[in-house]
């Protein structure tokens, strides 16, 4: 953006009372995808829907593109703005008090499917309830706010600090998806600021079909400001079943075949809220981590040399998982144990840490959301994966979804040019080895890094997104770069070059 135009926009934003910043924004140049389109020149921090409306009015009138961003934890790359667009940090929206102060602790507003307020204390576990939250809220803080009442957000992605707006924009999956679907399925109503040719329009959507279609819009359609997000009860110990199944062996193929067949059997006979797995090796937690000394869980962290250990965690309603112990007995090499919910959470924390941040290392995204449609092929996939990965840092994790086994792997690299190049090349080799139709492996591509969706994605999906955009964004102000063929060549997709 030219400097005078930038200054004008900044001034107009400030006149409208919207906080903005044109200073050192290099930290906003990328999200978790590694893609950058340059350092943004201007960022706005609206605090509520009214400010979003003024912002969009301004964008339409001045013909300026805007790019919404949540926490910036996504690997899709859509939270990255070209320098001539205004980046809009949505984290404050609906998450501030009257002074504009964003606070972590808040009192959640709970509503039923008709949007009527409900007293959570009087609710029953079968009730269909939603929490009405600003788009800037995160799963972590909402779960904290709900925990005393014994409820939780129904669909929570692995990074609990992504915003709900972001979860909707990427149609995130995570814990709870087997029961409640991807995030778009768990939203009952939303408010969004879209555009007309004159300026901003505010929409309130409660048609589930429309909401479902919009999920995964990656910011193309407007600024989501408020959502009714499904919540689920945290069942008591007598109603909830948590289990851990683990196996370790030196033969990766055998591990994959066994666990894959196990998962196939489970998918056929059980319904669960969450099915998550991780691979444990000697260094996954620090030597002094208290979990090693835990009388129940400590054993999972002892892995014989040369072996690989896979740990599969399930959580769900007892009556719907009644078949699990019987199924486990069909696989004598798999150790089956029932655990408590706190123990389940402790193992999940290890899983999150395994994929998440490590100090002074960077996780190089590349193998995101590979879905193995037929779990029986898991053995072949694992063999190739481990053979390619040999010696590299980072640990694969995944989800067991009803539609297949989803695997993520991000090699960890030291923050040097050489280290990151090596990690990228490893990712490319992995994709080559594993992304094969004969293995029934597909790349979901919604979160594919470097805007893979927009660079290499199926034309049908591009068409769909264009239609959505035409419907909601008449002025073409929201992320126009994503569907601009001239710019799509600049996205990384599955290629990379330093």
């Amino acid at each position, binding site marked *: 953006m030219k400097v005078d135009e930038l200054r004008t926009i900044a001034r107009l934003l400030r006149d409208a009372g919207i906080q903005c910043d044109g200073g050192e924004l290099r930290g906003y140049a990328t999200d978790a995808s590694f893609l950058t*389109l340059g350092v943004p020149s201007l960022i706005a921090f609206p605090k509520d829907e009214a400010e979003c409306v003024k912002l969009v009015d301004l964008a339409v009138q001045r013909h300026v593109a805007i790019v919404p961003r949540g*926490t910036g934890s996504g690997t899709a790359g859509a939270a990255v703005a070209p320098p001539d667009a205004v980046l809009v940090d949505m984290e404050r929206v609906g998450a501030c008090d009257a002074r504009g102060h*964003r606070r*972590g602790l808040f009192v959640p507003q709970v509503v039923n499917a008709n949007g009527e307020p409900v007293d959570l204390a009087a609710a029953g576990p079968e009730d269909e309830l939603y929490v009405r939250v600003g788009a800037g809220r995160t799963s972590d803080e909402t779960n904290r706010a709900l925990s005393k009442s014994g409820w939780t957000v129904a669909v929570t992605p692995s990074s609990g600090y992504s915003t709900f707006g972001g979860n909707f924009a990427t149609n995130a999956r995570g814990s709870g998806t087997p029961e409640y679907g991807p995030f778009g399925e768990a939203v009952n109503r939303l408010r969004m600021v879209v555009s007309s040719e004159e300026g901003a329009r505010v929409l309130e959507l409660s048609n589930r079909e429309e909401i479902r279609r919009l999920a995964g819009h990656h910011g193309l359609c407007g600024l989501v400001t408020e959502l009714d997000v499904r919540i689920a009860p945290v069942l008591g110990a007598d109603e909830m079943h948590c289990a851990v199944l683990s196996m370790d062996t030196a033969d990766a193929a055998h591990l994959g075949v066994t666990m894959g067949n196990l998962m196939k059997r489970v998918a056929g006979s059980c319904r669960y809220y969450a099915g998550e797995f991780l691979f444990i090796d000697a260094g996954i937690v620090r030597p002094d981590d208290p979990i090693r000394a835990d009388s129940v869980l400590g054993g999972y962290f002892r892995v014989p040399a040369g072996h690989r250990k896979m740990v599969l965690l399930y959580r769900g309603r007892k009556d719907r998982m009644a078949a699990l112990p019987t199924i486990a007995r069909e696989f004598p090499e798999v150790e089956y144990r029932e655990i408590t919910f706190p123990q389940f959470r402790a193992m999940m924390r290890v899983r999150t840490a395994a994929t998440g941040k490590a*100090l002074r290392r*960077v996780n190089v995204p590349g193998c995101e959301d590979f879905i193995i449609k037929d779990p029986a092929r898991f053995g072949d996939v694992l063999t190739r994966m481990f053979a390619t990965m040999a010696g590299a840092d980072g640990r694969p994790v995944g989800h067991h979804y009803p539609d297949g086994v989803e695997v993520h792997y991000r090699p960890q690299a030291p923050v040097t040019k050489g280290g990151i190049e090596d990690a990228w090349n490893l990712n490319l080799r992995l994709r080559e080895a594993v992304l094969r139709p004969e293995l029934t492996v597909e790349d979901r591509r919604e979160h594919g890094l470097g805007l893979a969706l927009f660079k290499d994605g199926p034309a049908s999906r591009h068409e769909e997104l264009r239609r959505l955009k035409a419907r909601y964004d008449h002025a073409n102000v929201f992320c126009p770069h994503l569907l601009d063929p001239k710019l799509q060549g600049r996205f*990384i997709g599955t290629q990379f070059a330093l």
Partner: protein
Amino acid sequence: MTETVSLVAVAAPSGRTGVDPALHVLTAEGCIQCNKCTFSCPVHRVDVLFSPRKVILQAYLGGADDVNERDLWACLTCGECQAVCPTQVPYPGFIRAQREKLRPGLDRAAPCKHGGFKDILAKIMAKPGLNQDRRAWIGDGLRVADKGDVIYFTGCMPYLDGIFSYCDSAGIGRAAIKIMNAAGIVPVVANAERCCGHDALWNGDRTTFETLARANARWIQESGAKRLVTTCAECYYMLKHEYPKVAGDWDGVEVLHMSELIEGLLKEGRLKFARPVDLQVTYQDPCRLGRHSKEYDAPREVLKAIPGLTFVEMDRVRENSMCCGVGAYSNCDAATKFMQQERLEEAASKADHMVTACPHCRIHFSCYLDGRPVDPLPDLKIVDLTELAAQALG
């Protein structure tokens, strides 16, 4: 045009191409530049140019040594940022480390904003030949001992009233001894005691802090006492969490804040609140007792046990509690006054008395109520938890 753009190809400020420094921000401390810290920061609310996110980013772009003086000292180290940070970047710890590194080279040698008083006091108490008379404030009718199981650690209390004359800090001490005597405890108040070193540590003067810590740890450990009780949240945090890092773990010594002691004595039946205290109060979680030490409950239990007392919580409590506006005495300025007005207004909307569990919170808020306010003064009185509890003894 099909040039592929990637983060890592941007030239670093020094001209060398390689990995972009912004990437370091996202990895070295785990900061993901989401800005939640800034939006929770009480200083930022008053001074929009102050942003923890920017300080972290700038530290990794230009090197941490380029943090400007204002940003270095304006931070209250209250911890509100760390409480909301998704990746738990230890911002107060980062600022503390930077102060330690940069302070020797700065012009401002005595960061204490009250004329350097607290700073020089700590330095004097670090002198080995010091021979204090720390009991003059105790007065009649209260019993203290030279040896015993319980040490009452008074910190700077003997010195505060000489300077902060709008408060009666020694009154807190007298109340504490009264309560302990009532429960059959004759506490040790020792002349060997030194400043706990809180301000020295948080303002980057590690030498003074370690001298004080070692001196204190030695006489406390040698005394044979089993419990170390303090009415100050800062001393409590230091004795419990920082001293072990320098002087080794306490061997057989339990560190307690006065609220924890009172809670325990009530439970054991050694203390009874016989006299009703007819007030409506709210409670200010001190940063050092609350966020830094995670003790939110004991003071509340004490308040709930006082008969006749009506206790109303503010909106921002526990880990969301708002700082009194001054951290380690090194950042009192115009911004502080606005913060204090904001917090006192919130308190006044709930009660006519605000209870503090740290003498410094009380000093800072009282200073504001005593001085020139930025808006009509809230109608509020500040009272210390221990003094309130002593009133209820009957």
